[in-house]
């Protein structure tokens, strides 16, 4: 078995005439925190979308745990072990926090209409397991006090954490976080860094898109830098920091989002 959990192999993604990803190749090793950075419009989220099956790559392939993800539906990819959060929060607003997480936990369950109607033992077992998983995750994320509230009524910070909890509930091997710190205060960002480290300590591999350089530098093991859909640098935070191409890219395109 290779050391790499996820490999992007010469992935190109075109929308009409626009090339969003151009021959992107990089890999994520098991157990690491990989940062994916780049200026606005560099193709970071597109990259996420290709990995999670939202888009099918125009050419090139994505390999997860040694097998190709080509042709798999989105939910199948999730069940293989890739979970994600969204840049603009996409919770299920009218469901409670704990239900949101239980939807994620259901990815590992098999009860369907028949089992639920008949109240089969597996249904009860899975319900109990789902509740426990959900509550443990909410506790872990520090938001269990609002478990019974509708997601739409939660404060912003809680919503961001809830998304992570929901993604973790699918029991992924790879957790993809799309700008989890967007809109956070510096103090909250520090908390989030701790949280991400704790998640990794539990054995997860993390792919992190982030604008905030300090966060990325502080928490990641390695960084991939995208610009105009191309990988312009790969390496440890310090290596990347000194890379002139990266500096140029960031200086050239003012970062108006952070």
């Amino acid at each position, binding site marked *: 078995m290779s050391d790499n959990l996820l490999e992007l192999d010469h992935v190109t993604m075109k929308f009409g005439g626009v090339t969003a990803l151009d021959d992107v190749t990089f890999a994520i090793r098991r157990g690491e925190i990989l940062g994916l950075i780049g200026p606005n419009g560099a193709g970071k989220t597109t990259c996420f979308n290709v990995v999670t099956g939202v888009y099918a790559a125009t050419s090139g392939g994505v390999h997860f745990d040694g097998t190709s993800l080509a042709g798999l539906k989105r939910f199948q990819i*999730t069940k293989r072990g890739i979970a994600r959060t969204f840049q603009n929060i*996409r919770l299920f607003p*009218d469901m409670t926090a704990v239900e949101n997480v239980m939807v994620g936990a259901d990815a590992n369950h098999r009860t369907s209409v028949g089992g639920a109607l008949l109240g089969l033992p597996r249904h009860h077992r899975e319900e109990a397991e789902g509740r426990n998983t959900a509550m443990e995750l909410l506790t872990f994320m520090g938001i269990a006090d609002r478990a019974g509230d509708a997601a739409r009524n939660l404060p912003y910070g809680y919503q961001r954490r809830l998304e992570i909890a929901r993604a973790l509930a699918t029991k992924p091997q790879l957790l993809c976080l799309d700008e989890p710190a967007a809109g956070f205060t510096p103090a909250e960002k520090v908390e989030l860094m701790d949280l991400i480290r704790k998640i990794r300590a539990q054995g997860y591999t993390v792919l992190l898109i982030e604008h905030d350089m300090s966060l990325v530098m502080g928490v990641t093991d390695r960084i991939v830098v995208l610009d105009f859909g191309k990988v312009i640098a790969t390496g440890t935070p310090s290596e990347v920091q000194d890379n002139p191409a990266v500096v140029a890219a960031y200086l050239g395109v003012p970062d108006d989002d952070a």
Partner: protein
Amino acid sequence: MSLSESLRSVTSGSYSVSRLGEALAKQSRSVRWSFGAICILALYLLPWWPSVPVLGWIVETPGTSFPSVLTDQVVIFVLVALGLNVVVGLAGLLDLGYVGFYAVGAYTVAILSSQHANLPWLLCMPIAVLVSMIAGVILGTPTLRLRGDYLAIVTLGFGEIIRITANNVEWLGDSRGISNIATPPSIGPLKFTVLDAKPYYFLGFTTILIVIFLLRRLENSRVGRSWNAIREDEDAAELMGVDTFKFKLWAFAIGAAIGGLAGSLYAGKVQFINPNNFPLQLSILFLAAVVLGGAGNMWGAVVGGALVAWMPERFRGFADKRVFVFGVALVLVMVFRPQGLIPRKIRKERWLESWKPSTEADLGGKE
């Protein structure tokens, strides 16, 4: 409290219902159960309500027979609203052709018990439910990939196709319809005769209770959660591992099955159906019942279905103006209570209060 605030609280006043619910929730299990049992018993006695003072004056339907209205309209509408609520309220799929499934159920019973065979109703009914379910799957498989309003117009077309086909195909009785449909078999003292609607009501009400019981199980399971997730955000649901197509198809099939069940009850009661029983407008009325009651809330669907069926009969005194009044009422209710009369509520997770962490936070992560 200012005047306008109080006005607002009156229109948004789910207070009476929700307060009752809250008060009940605080009671012990035995109190809740006995309250439920009394309600169910009272509802079983519904055909006799018009002879109760005050209450009778409220519910009676002057100019038409109350027990027959209950069986021919109210029971059918409540069942249909429950089924459509699964599709529209839970899974968030806009279905404007639900009458098609109702028709499939009724026609299956009619064909098997009168037109082309003489099977007993008790045998026809499950077949009708199954056939409706299959119709749901057949319609759903190609169309559930469509989004939102495309689905609405396609289902509307499906309802019309069913009606027009029934109207023009001799084998289905064409415009003459099918008479002499079998009635349910007599059970002990319950005799299903032409002139007594009450046994049909007992049968219908029992069916409703069973359907509610089963739907509650679904709602409180992985299936119900998946439907809710799909309604809230289909993309996010799929990315969280929900097999959206499969669950949408299930919602469609279950909705269709309940519609077919309602159709088979109707056919067994009236013993005659023709295509005029299944106009496009009925689909719209069904949808109005669900949304008026409160889409996504089973109790809302029950209340909406019962109201939409009963109100026009209650206000027969308005004669030809009642349809106009109904239209105005729909607009007003939507303007001032857009979530319906009994809005969908955030589910209270009763187990949450007693939940204790079983072990130290263990995320089940990979080693």
